[in-house]
């Protein structure tokens, strides 16, 4: 019998990928501030602390606001760019798309500091709004990537049929195209929401001291007695992320099924 070396390697690799996340819930319920074996017994103390933390509640509220605004704005920007690039041929498309997609490879610190320099010199005070601006910049390329594949899988003859039946461009977009790419739009919004919720570097540079989830977590990790609370919070966040991503994946697949295209892979 042939030994499935590749399969074993891949499973080992998945173990490596999941290792840090699997450890989170173990210590979230462990009755000790030291993150080490042997385990000290079961407690829900850390979850109580998380639930009753006023600063955390504020950070959560701010993060949800920022992530929600980022998701909506990036998806609108992403839809416009993806539609323009897939539907029309024009010379400026390549350089403009290059610029729009640049944040995907640019180190976040470079983007964050460049934005900081300009915002301060123009005299815009740092606030949640400036973080939203930064996050939209970071998230738009992901929205464009998801929506480009949604628009590419559209059958052009459907659109032409609508024109032939007397519909104008706007009603065609609303009646034919929008419903077909809607799963892509929802999926893009969920992904952008998740990215914004987790993002730290831009939030740290462009924040005014108002707590966000990521900056709150970073601050808490500095004092050992708060670390177990972060394990509990992390467990909750991982759960929420997985649910949001499963939803995004569900909508993406439904979108592909709706347009009748073979499924060829994940989000990117």
């Amino acid at each position, binding site marked *: 019998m042939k030994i499935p070396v590749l399969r074993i*390697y891949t499973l080992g690799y998945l173990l490596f990928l999941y290792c840090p996340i699997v450890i989170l819930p173990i210590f979230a319920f462990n009755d000790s501030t030291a993150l080490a074996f042997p385990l000290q017994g079961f407690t829900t103390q850390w979850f109580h602390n998380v639930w009753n933390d006023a600063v955390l509640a504020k950070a959560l509220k701010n993060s949800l606001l920022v992530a929600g605004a980022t998701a909506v704005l990036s998806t609108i920007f992403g839809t416009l760019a993806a539609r323009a*690039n897939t539907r029309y041929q024009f010379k400026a498309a390549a350089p403009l798309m290059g610029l*729009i997609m640049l944040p995907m*490879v640019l180190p976040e610190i470079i983007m964050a500091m460049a934005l900081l320099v*300009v915002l301060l010199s123009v005299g815009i005070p740092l606030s949640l709004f400036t973080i939203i601006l930064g996050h939209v910049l970071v998230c738009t390329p992901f929205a464009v990537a998801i929506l480009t594949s949604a628009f590419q899988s559209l059958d052009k003859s459907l659109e032409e049929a609508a024109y032939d039946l007397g519909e104008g461009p706007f009603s065609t977009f609303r009646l034919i195209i929008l419903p077909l790419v809607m799963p892509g739009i929802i999926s893009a919004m969920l992904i952008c929401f998740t990215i914004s919720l987790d993002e730290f570097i831009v939030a740290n540079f462009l924040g005014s001291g108002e707590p966000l989830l990521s900056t709150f977590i970073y601050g808490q*990790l500095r004092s050992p007695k708060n670390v177990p609370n972060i394990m509990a919070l992390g467990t909750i966040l991982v759960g929420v992320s997985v649910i949001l991503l499963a939803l995004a994946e569900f909508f993406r697949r439904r979108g592909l099924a709706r347009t009748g295209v073979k499924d060829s892979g994940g989000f990117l």
Partner: protein
Amino acid sequence: MSEPLNRPRFWGSQAASGLALISPTAVFAILLLAAPLAATLVYSVMTDGYLTVIPRFQLCNYIGECHSQLADGTMAPEGYLGAWSDPIVRTLMARSLIVSMLVTAATVLLAYPVAYFVSFNVEASRKPLWLFMITIPFWTSYVIRVFMWNVMISRTGVINSALEGLHIISDPLQMSFTIQAMVITLAHAYAPFAILPIYVALEKIDRSLLEAGQDLGETRFATFLRVTLPLSMTGVIAAVLIVFIPTIGDYVTPNLIGGGKIPMIANMIEKQMLKADNRTLGSAIAVTAMLVVGLVSVVFLLLNRRYLKGQK
């Protein structure tokens, strides 16, 4: 079906329609990305004033000893060296470059077999599930993920306490605060960025080419070396760039894993921009870092240009 002749022409030509549609996103990117990057470049050749930036051209942020402009307009030596002349900046730059290269090599080499497995050995209907499984850990809080590595490898952490509990070791292994620890953490953080482009490139390979190779008497391994690997190089190159470039900008891992003991160039940028408030020097270091990264990337692309020919 050809273009209908009676198509309403509300949106004018292709170019006009396309430009109109892309313009909100493009204007946003120009204002908040292109302009700030240009401003960083300009700032890097300006004079640092106390908590301000004085529009006075000089190259000291790169090459010299800087002077600052005092309230009465005279110039006073400020006592810091430029990004290229300061040995500390040079050391950090070199370290960042080495760490980024190690991370890139580790990430891409570890990721290739995984991408290969999912593309060639997994049934088509189950591929999306595998890709989903691979991307999930990537979408959980970056700060927490990095910190969890610290929890695992620290002196009193998970691995050491488990090994001691099992009486495998008596003294804890020294793993944290090392470059290896940072490389592992970052290779973990960027895993999906390497797997996905390689997977996409592998998926595009025409399977009949592989059969042809084997029909002509090549072994499986020879077919891999002569057909699969060269055809998947576009994905490998994309993976290398998409891991290498952002890694230079990471300052969370050096702080949490290196314990601040092994700072990298991004920590220096953060310090200058946020704490020391020397934005001209911070800008000059950032521009230098991007130049170095850009140069390395271009050299890498040139070395691999034969794989990119005729492919898009």
